[in-house]
């Protein structure tokens, strides 16, 4: 193990390390801690110019109550969910199939198709912006959640296929050969042999895509406007315009907007990190 395990060091080094950890963490999260503190300060603190003392009283209920009951925030959150969940399901479904095809079968175009998905995954969004916006307008899907979902599914399919194909390549091929010898139809091999083995990959991708799409801002701005279809990342700017200079409310809003992916991460940590670090180890 590197660096040298701290247990093998002297007692004082161990204590030093143990006490450095929380200090480092607080420094690392300082900007966020500041916002969390703001979000529970009552409005009165700000009008008296008291920014950095502890809250004079706990204003969290009031602030968060305003965010949930007196703004469009719940609407934006709901939109985000209605955009994120179908995208995650769609992209994972498409890429399970594509990954199966590219991971199991040998045919001439295989590697080229795979590279097409990989390369597409890296392109800057701006090269797609004008045509995709135009296409969405033509389909009558501008400013709808469906328009956003369709694009996200297509774009995320690149990353998901890369992920799935590599995962399936790592499965024991003997299983598929055995099934073929038994005369099992190819689509049944997919459904009954490969799919059950892909569960961890599916879970990892679901969590990752949920986070990526929840946090998307660019496409939300390009393809939607207004509270009826905008997700929370785009909505928070109108929220902030509404509560300009009300820092306690804007902080509470920011925390609410950030929370779902954070919760997802802490609940599904194992899958999340497995997905994110795929390929980081040979």
């Amino acid at each position: 193990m590197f660096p040298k395990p701290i247990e093998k060091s002297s007692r004082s080094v161990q204590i030093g390390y143990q006490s450095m950890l929380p200090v480092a963490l607080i420094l690392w999260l300082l900007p966020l801690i500041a916002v969390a503190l703001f979000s529970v300060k009552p409005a009165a603190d700000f009008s008296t110019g008291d920014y950095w003392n502890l809250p004079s009283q706990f204003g969290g209920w009031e602030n968060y109550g305003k965010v949930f009951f007196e703004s469009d925030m719940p609407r934006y959150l709901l939109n985000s969910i209605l955009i994120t969940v179908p995208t995650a399901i769609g992209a994972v479904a498409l890429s399970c199939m594509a990954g199966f095809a590219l991971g199991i079968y040998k045919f001439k175009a295989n590697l080229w198709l795979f590279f097409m998905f990989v390369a597409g995954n890296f392109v800057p969004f701006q090269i797609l912006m004008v045509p995709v916006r135009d296409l969405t307008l033509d389909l009558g899907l501008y400013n709808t959640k469906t328009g956003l979902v369709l694009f996200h599914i297509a774009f995320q399919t690149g990353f998901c296929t890369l992920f799935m194909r590599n995962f399936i390549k790592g499965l024991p091929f003997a299983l598929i050969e055995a099934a073929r010898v038994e005369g099992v139809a190819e689509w049944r091999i997919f459904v009954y042999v490969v799919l059950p083995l892909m569960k961890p990959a599916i879970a990892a991708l679901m969590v990752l895509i949920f986070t990526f799409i929840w946090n998307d801002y660019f496409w939300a701005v390009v393809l939607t406007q207004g509270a009826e279809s905008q997700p929370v990342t785009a909505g928070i700017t109108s929220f902030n315009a509404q509560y300009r200079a009300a820092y306690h409310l804007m902080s509470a809003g920011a925390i609410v907007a950030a929370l779902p992916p954070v919760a997802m991460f802490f609940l599904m940590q194992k899958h999340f990190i497995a997905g994110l670090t795929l390929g980081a180890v040979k």
Partner: protein
Amino acid sequence: MTTTAVPPTSPDQPRRSWYKRNEIGVTPWLFLIPAILFFLVYVIFPIIQSFNISAYQWDGLGEKEYVGLSNYQELWDDPAFYTSLKNNLIWLVLYLLAIPAGLFIALFLNQTVTGIRIYKSLFFFPFVISQVVVGLVFTWFYDPTFGLLNSILGVVGLGPVNVLGDPTYVTYGIIAAGLWPQTAYCMILYLTGLNAVDPEQVEAARLDGAKGWKMLWYVIVPQLKPATFIAFVVTIVGALRSFDLISIMTNGGPFGESRVLSFYMFEVALSEYGFRMGYGAAIAVVLFLIMLCFIAYFLYSMYKEERGH
């Protein structure tokens, strides 16, 4: 392509359906069709269309007017384009700091004391937060009247610095905000990588007297190569995608000094400055060509890897 491996059929067997006979050849295409279709319509064709649109003058609604290369000629003389390009370069170079910084934090946290798992997750979680929120958090952090940064600087007798209002600092201020989640990402890649470092090699090197920096550089870092490659890829892509932070923190300002190509393109094509789709597409093409150099390198690396198997 559809002729590979026809299952053996004896002549007396009843003739099987076309699909049955070509099953192995046809199935992958059936499985691929939906993904390919989506990807062509929303990713591949739009790239080609953007190249095409960049040769037109177009407001997004009316008639397109063919103007040849004049959009690119205009770019050539556009000072805002050069500001953006310069800032893109600064982003690319400074963003790479996330890789050593991530490695450093990973080394710091790669211990087995009690509660270390919680520390690892908490160090990682800036990456999970959307860039919009990161942008807001840092805007407030930098705020000249009440921001934490200036409060701290005030204590040591410095400041106040209006980071986001000053053309010299603004890009660096935004990059610092971007480095926060990016470093967390690199950290998690390296933590996973360090987990897989071969303990026998480390012990052997220790017996040979290697330690500290030498050990890190000659024994550990080479074993972390796959993690470094991914960290490099995601950091480059992240640097060239920088849009959210700029849009939230400064909206390109002050005086357009914090623009990068991705933001300038959006501004030209879709914001109040008018809907100049053709000009925007030309900027996007330049950005795409820059990215293409990296994509080619990534694919080449992956190709070598694939051949190796």
